[in-house]
């Protein structure tokens, strides 16, 4: 009887430990960034974009994209399987409205083995753009674009298997002009 109780206690302890480890591991591998610390910047910003779309909202919205329209079909394919899209962008009238600590609070979350920095462009005048990827095997499970400009701070966080090729081709399509969020660049006409 005593042995049975001891075994039961041991089993319960091991199970609890395993559950805790699983929960911690799942949290650690999440591609979701915590950007709440930047919310106070909305009061200082002249223009703010704050989009938080979770998986359920993506699934619900996906039904409103036509399967017959080629453009909308492409978007539907792009968002299919995504777990969340989170964008925070602040544009300021003057420089120095946000601090380096604000940027570091985001960047520090990306300094883990799960994230790989695939692109880093630094410019004294135009700021920097960093692109991070989280991969699971050969599939992308998360994307972060951190664009830091003297008058602008943008964080794009996409969870799930995003197609970077399709995403980068999206700008300027669907009858909507390109967003004027960067210095104008002479573009070659598409073939």
């Amino acid at each position, binding site marked *: 009887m005593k042995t049975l109780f001891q075994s039961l206690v041991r089993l319960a302890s091991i199970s609890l430990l395993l559950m805790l480890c699983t929960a911690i591991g799942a949290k650690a591998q999440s591609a979701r960034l915590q950007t709440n610390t930047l919310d106070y910047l909305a009061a200082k910003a002249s223009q703010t974009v*704050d*989009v938080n779309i979770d998986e359920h909202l*993506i699934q619900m919205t996906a039904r409103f994209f036509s399967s017959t329209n080629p453009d909308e079909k492409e978007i539907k394919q792009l968002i299919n399987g995504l777990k969340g899209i989170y964008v925070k962008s602040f544009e300021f009238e003057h420089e120095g409205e946000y601090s380096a600590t604000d940027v570091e609070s985001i960047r520090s979350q990306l300094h883990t083995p799960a994230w790989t920095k695939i692109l880093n462009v630094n410019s004294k005048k135009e700021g920097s753009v960093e*692109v991070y990827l989280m991969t699971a095997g050969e599939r992308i499970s998360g994307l972060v674009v951190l664009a830091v400009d003297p008058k602008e701070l943008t964080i794009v966080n*996409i969870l799930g298997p995003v197609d*970077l090729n399709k995403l*980068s081709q999206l700008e300027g399509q669907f009858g909507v002009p390109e967003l004027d969020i960067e210095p104008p*660049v002479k573009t070659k006409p598409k073939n």
Partner: protein
Amino acid sequence: MNNDYLWDRTGEPDVEVQQLEDVLGTLRYQPQPLELPAEVQPAARRRSFSALAVAATIALLVLAAGVWIRFYRQQVSPPAIAKEGVNSNQASVTSTPTPMRPDELITGPGNQARLGITAPKRSPAPRHTNRKNILTRRDEMTATQRAEAEAAKDQLLLALRVASAKLNLAQRKTVGAPTSNNIRNQHKLG
């Protein structure tokens, strides 16, 4: 010398053997009941073990039930509620993580209050519905909910365009030409 005494204690014993018997005889086994120290009480220990085991089992069951309910609600959780930003310059879509019962996915009174929809009068539905019924209710969206979803669609497009613009900006800064795409071949999907 007769050694019978050493074998079966018969015959005349040797003096030295007798002395040895006297010395070692004090260490001879003497049957007596086991006397445990007062602080060691097997019954109390068993009780504490059983209480600990029961507590651990209950904790494990509660934890397992919590995990199961969480997963169950995630599977049938409602579509999130879209909310327009308060500032004209601020676009915002937020989703409420509040878990709801499956029969409240769209037409629940809490949802309607949050969406600002007056509840239409309808025949009472059974409280327990299956998954097929839930999907049917989802399909029957009201005009207001459709408008909310359309707004969410616009926000989704905005988010994708910002993401696309920033990716292209990074590529343009890297290469200096808009047509090239370094990221394109980094990870092939599918």
